[in-house]
């Protein structure tokens, strides 16, 4: 295996110190084993036949020719699903394999296992599906009157939030309609995994995912097995960003493995991956803001419609976020927000970094700029004036009990001196390598945006994470089922154990359902807090046991003992022992960590539904070639409320990466869907920012105010960077062009033909 960069360090990093990722160098040099690299000597290859229609009845599926293809071991259809035929994160409404109907293009219809990928391909081609093609339901605005896409109906969830006095009217009102297109998570490692059947009827599934135990429970139900008969182990994850919250090939692999008695591996192609996971919900949003003449917000009204696509996935939680955070991190005494997520025959949508907060941030920040314009106020001053402070109420009526350094985030970001000068190199101008612009064709724009989002699971969900710690011979071994998807838990788990136990060597066991209970999902910016909290507590219990044991054995006061430099030392003097020799027996502790409970929203969308919040601001500077409609983001400055920085290196990485996804949504990232069909299911045509599109991210400030209840006071930091970045970039383009630009991504034609021509 590869030498890791960390091995050179003399003292292993603790909390607050830079901890390089052990998988960093292997990933860069190509040595990291991703889930697509899994191999078994006896393995078969699996493949999926997908619907070519976005809405159709299946009259019949004929697999007779496919079964006869040389090398084919299994061809399975809906009837072959051994247990529950449907799965889903919140509602089990999505078929493992389509039976009577297909509800979106790319929906799995049949699966194949064969000796060779080529035999898989030939078998898939040989399957004959007789479709009765139906007219797809694709317009989310009219879907509630349309034919039901699904027996559960076309409305997945509506929240009618009413907060404060509903009769309030502001002296100044601004109104706008906004749209966010469908974004893809665009992870690099396509869905892949391997199922290995065991003789006792149980199955091991190695897969890249975000939540092993939720997957396990859904797979077990669909396989008709007890949960302990299905063991999931995390395989090398090539990015997630929400796209691995739902099952993809999990049940398919297990069905094929059980049917053939052989290990089965499956790897989606890039095109298949675009059909194989959920996307960010497209949103249509109408807003009206009311304010006093001095700029004080008095009321916000909004109608939000999210297109959930064919299946529910996590839509009901996404619309809750969009509704609860619809007005942004501002004091709003009165609000009426009607948020609905609906079902269509478009690609299913679900979790993606920012989870409902991204869409509304684009809209509420555009509204704040519009309001500033109407009031003749400075946009930053308007935001400062209305910024939430601890003790303020949210739209849900919930009082902010934790930290909320919103004003600090605004000030530090807005006051940071801009650094970008006008480019001379044509590569650095809008159009980049295409050399389309000269400096005289370029207009510069600048704007500011603020966003926020909840951390951890909300609305009364029993959110917990289990972890254990075992100390033996001076080495701490940590067990957690937390999925490392790139967020950096592997370094944090070790830093936390070192910090608490004073050890240098920490072993983090592979994440699996076999040895430990659920860690919950790697999503909702929650793992640092939840699994980090579990590890902190488990290590703390081990530490206490160790010191009590030493105190009893050596007749010293446990409170007098400290751990430093790998030794346990009595502060009073006279006692000292090497940590590695402190006990002969291992010391263990196992912990189930929970955050403070939350409550469901009531019929008015009111309630203490959330735990904690993270705030971020971005200032964007853009150069726009107005005549061609091309944009170059030249500078992004950010401040973020982080609670406490645990690993500075990774903090920077999260802020840069999140902002890159935000820039992508602002200027290029869009899953183009027409009549339910994805027109650009490839990285040739689904564009993500390159090095020439992504500016340096200037971190103006990391606001460190310890959050109560969080380990070391640290808030989750992964999602906030992707929330206000899109809004800031879009606003900067507005500033440069003077156009309304009510939709992201901003396309060249939106700038060139603002009236809507072509």
């Amino acid at each position: 295996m590869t030498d890791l960069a960390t091995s050179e360090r003399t003292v292993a990093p603790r909390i607050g110190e830079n901890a390089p990722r052990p998988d960093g160098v292997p990933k860069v040099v190509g040595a990291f084993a991703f889930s697509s690299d899994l191999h078994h000597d006896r393995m078969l290859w699996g493949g999926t036949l997908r619907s070519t229609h976005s809405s159709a009845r299946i009259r019949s599926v004929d697999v007779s020719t496919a079964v006869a293809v040389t090398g084919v071991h299994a061809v399975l259809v809906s009837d072959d699903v051994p247990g529950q035929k449907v799965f889903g994160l919140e509602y089990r409404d999505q078929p493992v394999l389509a039976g009577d109907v297909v509800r979106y293009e790319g929906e799995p219809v049949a699966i194949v296992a064969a000796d060779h990928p080529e035999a898989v391909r030939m078998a898939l081609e040989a399957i004959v599906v007789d479709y009765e093609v139906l007219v797809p339901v694709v317009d989310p605005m009219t879907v509630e009157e349309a034919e039901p896409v699904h027996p559960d109906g076309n409305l997945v969830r509506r929240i009618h939030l009413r907060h404060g006095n509903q009769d309030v009217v502001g002296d100044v009102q601004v109104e706008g309609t906004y749209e966010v297109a469908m974004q893809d998570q665009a992870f690099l490692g396509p869905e892949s995994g391997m199922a290995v059947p065991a003789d006792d009827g149980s199955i091991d599934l190695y897969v890249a995912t975000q939540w092993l135990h939720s997957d396990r429970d859904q797979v077990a139900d669909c396989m008709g097995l007890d949960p302990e008969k299905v063991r999931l182990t995390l395989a090398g994850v090539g990015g997630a960003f929400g796209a691995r919250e739902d099952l993809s090939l999990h049940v398919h692999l297990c069905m094929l493995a059980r049917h053939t008695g052989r290990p089965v591996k499956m790897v989606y192609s890039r095109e298949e991956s675009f059909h194989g996971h959920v996307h960010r919900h497209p949103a249509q949003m109408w807003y009206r803001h009311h304010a006093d003449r001095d700029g004080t917000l008095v009321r916000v009204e909004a109608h939000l419609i999210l297109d959930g696509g064919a299946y529910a996935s996590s839509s009901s939680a996404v619309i809750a976020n969009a509704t609860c955070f619809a007005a942004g991190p501002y004091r709003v005494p009165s609000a009426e927000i009607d948020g609905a997520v609906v079902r269509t025959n478009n690609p299913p949508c679900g979790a993606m970094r920012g989870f409902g907060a991204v869409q509304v941030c684009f809209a509420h920040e555009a509204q704040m700029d519009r309001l500033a314009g109407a009031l003749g106020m400075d946009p930053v001053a308007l935001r400062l004036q209305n910024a939430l402070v601890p003790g303020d109420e949210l739209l849900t009526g919930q009082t902010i009990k934790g930290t909320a350094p919103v004003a600090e985030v605004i000030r530090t970001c807005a006051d940071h001196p801009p650094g970008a000068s006008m480019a001379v190199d044509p590569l650095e101008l809008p159009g980049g390598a295409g050399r389309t612009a000269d400096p005289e064709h370029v207009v510069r724009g600048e704007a500011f945006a603020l966003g926020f989002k909840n951390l951890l699971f909300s609305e009364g969900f029993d959110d917990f994470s289990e972890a254990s710690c075992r100390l033996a011979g001076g080495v701490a071994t940590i067990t957690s089922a937390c999925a490392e998807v790139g967020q950096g838990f592997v370094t944090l788990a070790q830093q936390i154990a070192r910090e608490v136990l004073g050890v240098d060597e920490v072993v983090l066991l592979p994440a699996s359902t076999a040895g430990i209970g659920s860690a919950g999902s790697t999503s909702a910016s929650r793992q640092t807090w939840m699994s980090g909290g579990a590890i902190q507590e488990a290590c703390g219990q081990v530490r206490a046991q160790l010191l009590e044991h030493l105190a009893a054995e050596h007749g010293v006061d446990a409170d007098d003992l400290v751990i430093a430099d790998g030794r346990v030392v009595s502060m009073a003097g006279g006692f000292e022992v090497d940590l590695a020799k402190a006990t002969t027996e291992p010391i263990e502790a196992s912990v189930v960590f929970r955050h403070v409970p939350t409550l469901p929203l009531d019929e008015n969308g009111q309630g203490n539904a959330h735990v904690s919040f993270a705030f971020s601001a971005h200032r964007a500077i853009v150069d726009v070639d107005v005549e061609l409609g091309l944009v170059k983001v030249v500078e992004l400055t950010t401040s973020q409320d982080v609670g406490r920085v645990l690993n500075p290196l990774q903090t920077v990485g999260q802020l840069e990466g999140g902002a890159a996804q935000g820039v992508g949504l602002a200027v290029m990232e869009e899953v183009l869907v027409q009549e339910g069909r994805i027109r650009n299911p490839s990285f040739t045509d689904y564009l993500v920012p390159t090095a020439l599109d992504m500016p340096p991210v200037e971190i103006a400030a990391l606001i460190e105010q310890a959050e109560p209840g969080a380990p070391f006071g640290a808030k989750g930091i992964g999602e906030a960077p992707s929330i206000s970045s899109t809004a800031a970039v879009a606003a900067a383009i507005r500033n440069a062009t003077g156009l309304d630009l009510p939709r992201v991504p901003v396309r060249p034609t939106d700038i060139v033909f603002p009236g809507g021509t072509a």
Partner: protein
Amino acid sequence: MTIATSLEDACAALAAEPNSVIVAGGTDLMVEVNRGSRCVENVVALDRIPELADWHLTGDELRFGAGVTFAEICEPEIAALVPALAQAARTVGSPQIRNAATLGGNIATASPAGDSIPVLAALDAVLELRSTEAIREVPVTEFITGVKATCLMPGELIEAVRVPVLDGPQEFCKVGTRNAMVISVASLALLVDRSARRIRVALGSVSPIPLRASEAEDHASGHLDWDSGVQPGPEVVREFAELVAGSANPIDDHRGSAAYRRHAVRVLAERSLTRVLNRVSSP
């Protein structure tokens, strides 16, 4: 699969299996194979034929082996001779793609969005096609007969591409919705040919086949005072740009609308003519 190490071997293999698929850099072919949209039975690989990877200058004529890569075309030595071709090469894909993708492959793929095609069309490039039977020469504008269609015969391969070294500044511009590594939505090559007293213009991604904007060329060439170096006014540039836009024959697709493409080539025409005029008048 034949891995040819000489032109003779390659042509013999193609003669034996005339329906063979030719692979050079593979950057277009493998995308189609991986997508399952192209089934490949016999393959003749050209990437180990030394003479295909060569280029040389004879008098005022450059001859590229069809296997010369875009990375090589970006090098200063070639860029000094055909700057627009080097600019176009720089816009092809990523560095990894440019290291593998070849000039001959770009032509043979015959995509309307092929980045080298407008430059080659403006240069009146001539292709040398070879089979066991014969060697024939075809202008690039005749070689490409439609979207991804060429007049390459079974058994034939592209051996070389010949282009003139012109006296005068050159421009290549390409519009895409990303600042690098993007498929062209519209592109334009504009070359000055001082000795023939001509402005040459060709367009990309706005027509199924390589497109020279001849009316626009006549207009600009006629309004330039080639002896004095005194430049025509902005109305000539604008008229030129309108003529360029008028010659385009674009379509709507998921990468851009026809209206935007027509608009974009107009803007590119105006800007690139202005750029070269600024350089023509400077000593």
